[in-house]
């Protein structure tokens, strides 16, 4: 046993820090946007990497800084608690057009002052035509843009924002500081010969790294000075002492290596925060925090310099600070990433590079910190393997029982071999951490591009039924008239062909965006913390990292699986339904939004009058067109009944998630069609594509854009999330559901799979509840599942929270790969979470 479990109470300071943080709604601040514009205006014509580093320096030299009351760990990206900065170099038009609605929108509202609007309005004048967003659009093929317009997939994440999705070498900063990294860059620079073929490129990059290190050091010194000023002004002796220590810490780190645990915490925090000032990319993940922080904790403990109580308080302070960072997204993305989440994933446990158990005191203290603060960030994860201590499983189960949706559980026994298959060394694979939602990577060495796209597999199924057409346009490819198909293989073949083609378009889109980031937004600060950028003299965005991937996510596995099974059963096996009828039922949303013949005239007249009163001239032809559209929705009473009846027949069939191997086999096929096609492609950084199977929360908004599917799902309803069974369809309990989900090829979906399970609190009550819960997770992992996460909250509680949000401001639920405050989610996403099958334990 390599650990001691310290059970420590939360201090009153932590409650007050949280109260302060959540007192006001989050706010958009203009400073970064204005400062980067100033800098860019003055560096026109210089190499882009130089301009980026100068802008970073200019921002850190001038951005307002603040120390919040009672903080022990300092450094805030915004003056307002939970405020955010803006990043016009990626995209800006959406925000300008949403200035007046962003404060009142449903998903993730932000306050913005009139002054900030005016300053940003001025700054934005510079950016027209200069963003990654605009460049990427220009790089995409017309058919790709058409597929995006038709909502087959979205690459919006990196289309509008920075990449993020990285775990940097925190350990390196803790050990040698930015002074040490600066030294490395200088040495690399000194070794260059002006005659080197790539001298210019390397020189500018290394100089940019040095400038970025200087910027970080300068920024910390500003905090040291502020702390000294506040100490001098403080009348409270205790606080004065704290502030003096804070000042001393900020003078030492992150410039130099940390000498105490407190310094290590402060140094970590500067890195974590500054990465999110350099770029707007989210999922900047602390990774294996319990591993790289442990030596500093151990040293202080052994020297008797620190108590477990104070060490825990420092951790709790970091946990609060992780909730201080924020990001404004466009209204549509905010729906998909609801809950103000930055997906800062922090993971504990697992194995060392040598393959020994890595659990230590801090692993438990991190879980304890989450119980103390009860906030959505960090996205806390636990790595489990066959050698994990039982204590860790139980402590994690205790955290799960709080209902906060944390931690997420990860299976070393699947993920390590999966990473090996993608070319990682055994040491690097054993050292994996999780990025963002569920994406594994080797920390400090990887540019994983993990959230590259959301790909809606249900839309592919729609195109199979429409022979490639969507809304009158050829979006896919012709794969034959579905009503002429004579066996299941014909259907699967068409599905695979459509899939391959649409994945090519998605790859085109991602690679276009990749190029835009390469050319316009290299990140020298981030690159200084990822191996082997300094060695190669190349920014991460241009292929500087040791490992390079692009990871787009497919979702809708369960819908496609249940749909394929239904077609196979009803059309080909029992022959109860013809394919023509099946298609017609889908076209008419299973008879649900059909129009009776008698209603046609009234509807046409209403539409025409609407056009006229809107000032449009309406010709005979227009009326005929309207009549044709309305007419196409007309069904006879018999047809309507028949299609409704087909849906009943479909609903009566067995579904994925009930431990029925024949159904589950279709899920494996549906997922495999996606993941095996994705992995054939390459990205511009010299890496390969790898598929993920998870939706964040995009299954709700993207489901709204999806027509009826053969699994009986009605048009516009949410699509199944992650690899989970369709909501409410797993009726045989959690063991059956888990056994089904484990039948997918999780190892091949090496960008991560996501399995949501919802429990009623009674299922985890008492010690035996914890034991049984831990056994459930353990068994799912025995069966080669990769990830599992839980909502432990009663349906009644969630319904009451919808009715009385004011009473549930702090109710945290697991959304998908992250936790969020329930009341901040949109109504439709709330409904979806309520609908997920609740596993009570009988």
């Amino acid at each position, binding site marked *: 046993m390599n650990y001691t479990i310290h059970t420590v109470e939360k201090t009153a300071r932590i409650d007050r820090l949280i109260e302060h943080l959540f007192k006001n709604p989050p706010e958009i601040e203009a400073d970064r946007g204005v400062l980067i514009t100033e800098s860019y205006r003055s560096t026109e014509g210089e190499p882009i990497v130089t301009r980026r580093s100068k802008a970073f320096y200019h921002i850190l030299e001038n951005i307002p800084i603040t120390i919040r009351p009672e903080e022990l760990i300092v450094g805030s990206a915004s003056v307002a608690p939970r405020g955010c900065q803006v990043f016009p170099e990626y995209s800006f038009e959406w925000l300008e057009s949403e200035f007046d609605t962003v404060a009142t929108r449903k998903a993730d509202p932000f306050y913005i002052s009139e002054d900030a609007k005016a300053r940003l309005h001025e700054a934005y004048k510079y950016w027209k035509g200069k963003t990654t967003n605009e460049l990427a659009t220009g790089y995409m093929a017309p058919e790709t843009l058409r597929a995006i317009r038709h909502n087959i997939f979205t690459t919006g994440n990196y289309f509008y924002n920075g990449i993020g999705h990285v775990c940097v070498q925190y350990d390196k900063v803790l050990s040698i500081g930015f002074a040490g990294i600066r030294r490395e860059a200088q040495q690399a620079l000194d070794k260059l010969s002006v005659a080197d073929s790539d001298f210019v490129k390397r020189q500018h990059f290394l100089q940019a790294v040095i400038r970025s290190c200087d910027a970080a050091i300068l920024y910390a010194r500003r905090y040291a000075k502020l702390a000294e000023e506040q100490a001098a002004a403080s009348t409270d002796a205790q606080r004065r002492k704290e502030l003096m220590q804070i000042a001393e810490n900020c003078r030492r780190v992150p410039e130099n290596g940390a000498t105490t645990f407190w310094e290590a915490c402060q140094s970590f925090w500067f890195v974590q925060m500054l990465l999110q000032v350099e770029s707007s990319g989210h999922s900047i993940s602390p990774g294996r925090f319990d591993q790289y922080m442990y030596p500093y904790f151990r040293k202080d403990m052994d020297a008797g310099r620190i108590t477990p109580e104070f060490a825990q308080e420092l951790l709790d302070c970091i946990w609060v600070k992780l909730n201080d960072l924020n990001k404004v997204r466009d209204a549509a993305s905010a729906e998909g990433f609801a809950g103000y989440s930055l997906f800062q994933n922090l993971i504990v446990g697992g194995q060392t590079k040598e393959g020994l158990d890595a659990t230590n005191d801090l692993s438990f203290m991190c879980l304890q910190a989450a119980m103390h603060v009860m906030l959505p960030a960090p996205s806390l994860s636990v790595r489990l393997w066959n050698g994990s201590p039982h204590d860790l499983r139980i402590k994690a189960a205790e955290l799960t029982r709080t209902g906060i949706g944390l931690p997420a559980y990860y299976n070393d026994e699947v993920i390590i071999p999966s990473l090996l298959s993608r070319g990682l060394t055994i040491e690097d694979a054993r050292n994996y951490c999780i990025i963002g939602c569920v994406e594994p990577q080797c920390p400090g060495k990887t540019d994983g591009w993990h959230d590259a796209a959301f790909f809606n597999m249900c839309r592919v199924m729609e195109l199979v039924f429409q022979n490639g057409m969507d809304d009158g346009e050829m979006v896919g490819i012709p794969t034959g008239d579905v009503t002429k198909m004579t066996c299941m293989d014909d259907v699967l073949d068409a599905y695979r062909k459509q899939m391959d083609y649409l994945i090519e378009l998605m790859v085109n889109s991602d690679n276009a965006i990749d190029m835009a980031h390469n050319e316009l937004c290299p990140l020298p600060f981030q690159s200084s913390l990822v191996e082997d950028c300094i060695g190669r003299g190349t920014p991460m965005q241009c292929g500087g990292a040791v490992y390079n991937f692009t990871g787009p996510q497919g979702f809708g596995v369960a819908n496609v699986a249940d749909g394929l099974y239904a077609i196979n059963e009803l059309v080909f096996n029992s022959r109860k339904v013809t394919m023509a009828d099946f298609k017609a039922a889908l076209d008419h949303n299973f008879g649900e939004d059909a129009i009776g013949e008698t209603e046609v005239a009234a509807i046409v007249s209403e539409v025409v009058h609407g056009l006229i009163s809107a000032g449009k001239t309406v010709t005979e032809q227009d009326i005929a067109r309207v009549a044709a559209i309305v007419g196409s929705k007309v069904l006879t009473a018999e047809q309507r009944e028949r299609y409704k009846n087909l849906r009943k027949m479909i609903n009566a069939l067995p579904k994925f998630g009930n*431990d029925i191997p024949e159904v589950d086999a279709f899920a494996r096929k549906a997922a495999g069609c996606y993941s095996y096609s994705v992995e054939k492609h390459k990205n511009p950084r010299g890496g390969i594509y790898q598929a993920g199977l998870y939706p964040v929360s995009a299954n709700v908004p993207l489901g709204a854009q999806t027509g009826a599917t053969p699994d009986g799902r009605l048009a516009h309803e949410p699509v199944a999330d992650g690899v989970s069974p369709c909501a409410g369809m797993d009726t*045989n*309990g*959690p*063991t*059956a559901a888990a*056994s089904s989900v484990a039948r997918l090829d999780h190892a091949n979906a090496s960008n991560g799979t996501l399995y949501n399970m919802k429990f009623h609190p009674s*299922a985890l*009550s*008492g010690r*035996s*509840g914890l*034991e*049984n819960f831990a*056994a*459930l997770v*353990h*068994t799912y992992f*025995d*069966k080669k599942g990769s990830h599992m996460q839980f909502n432990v909250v009663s349906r009644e509680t969630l319904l009451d929270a919808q009715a009385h949000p004011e009473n549930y401001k702090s109710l945290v639920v697991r959304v998908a790969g992250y936790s969020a405050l329930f009341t901040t989610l949109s109504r439709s996403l709330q409904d979806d979470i309520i609908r997920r099958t609740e*596993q009570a*334990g*009988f």
Partner: protein
Amino acid sequence: MQQDIYSVRGRIADIQRFSIHDGPGIRTIVFLKGCHFRCRWCCNPEMQEYGIQTMTVNGVPKTIGRDVTVEEVMREVVKDRDFFRRSGGGMTLSGGECLSQPEFAIALLAAAKDMGLNTAIESTAFTSYENVITKVLPHLDNFLMDIKHMDRAKHEAFIGKPNDIVLENARKIAPNAKRLVIRVPTIPGFNDTPAEIGAIARFAASLPRVEELHLLPYHRLGQDKYTWLDREYTLPDILPPTDEHMQMLLAEAQKSGLRCQIGG
């Protein structure tokens, strides 16, 4: 012999996976049809009759009861073998009264042991000790036995049968069972006074080798089923006991010296 037990037929109402309150670990419960008792609070009234019944659930008729072989049941039960192994769980027979189909119940338990599974039954033990229970015990790891009341008349009034056989069998089972746990459904207006619970606990403590007693608070989750079966629910006005009340009864039960808990 083995071939024989696997082909024994019986009548079940349901098989439920991931049961975590009826014996140790994660378990699969097999509900057998038929019961000698007619407890007025029974939450599985559709399992009382041995005959196959139709229950109308929200307008949809549902057949309750199907005849299966031991082999068919075990095929379903072993699906969760891996979960049993990690949690120390296994198979639990319930009902109805599982021992009201003695040959089937014994064959199921023997098959489970044959396959290396942990076994439990939830039972009232209202059957012949010599002819049935002695044949059950060799295959049984956990006997979860209901004792509902010490008063013969009250037992008969609420349950339909007196308690003599139950109490007599409890005394016989205790020294011979691998593990016997006494469980008391705690029903307001029937047995939820400290005196009544205390009496059961003292009796349980007097049984040799019995160490545990579980108080199972009354719940109304079965109430709708009476409507679906077109039957009258004769306890319409009672409410589930409050937490405070259960804590008070727990304290009373603990005076017996047994390890007591609320819930299974």
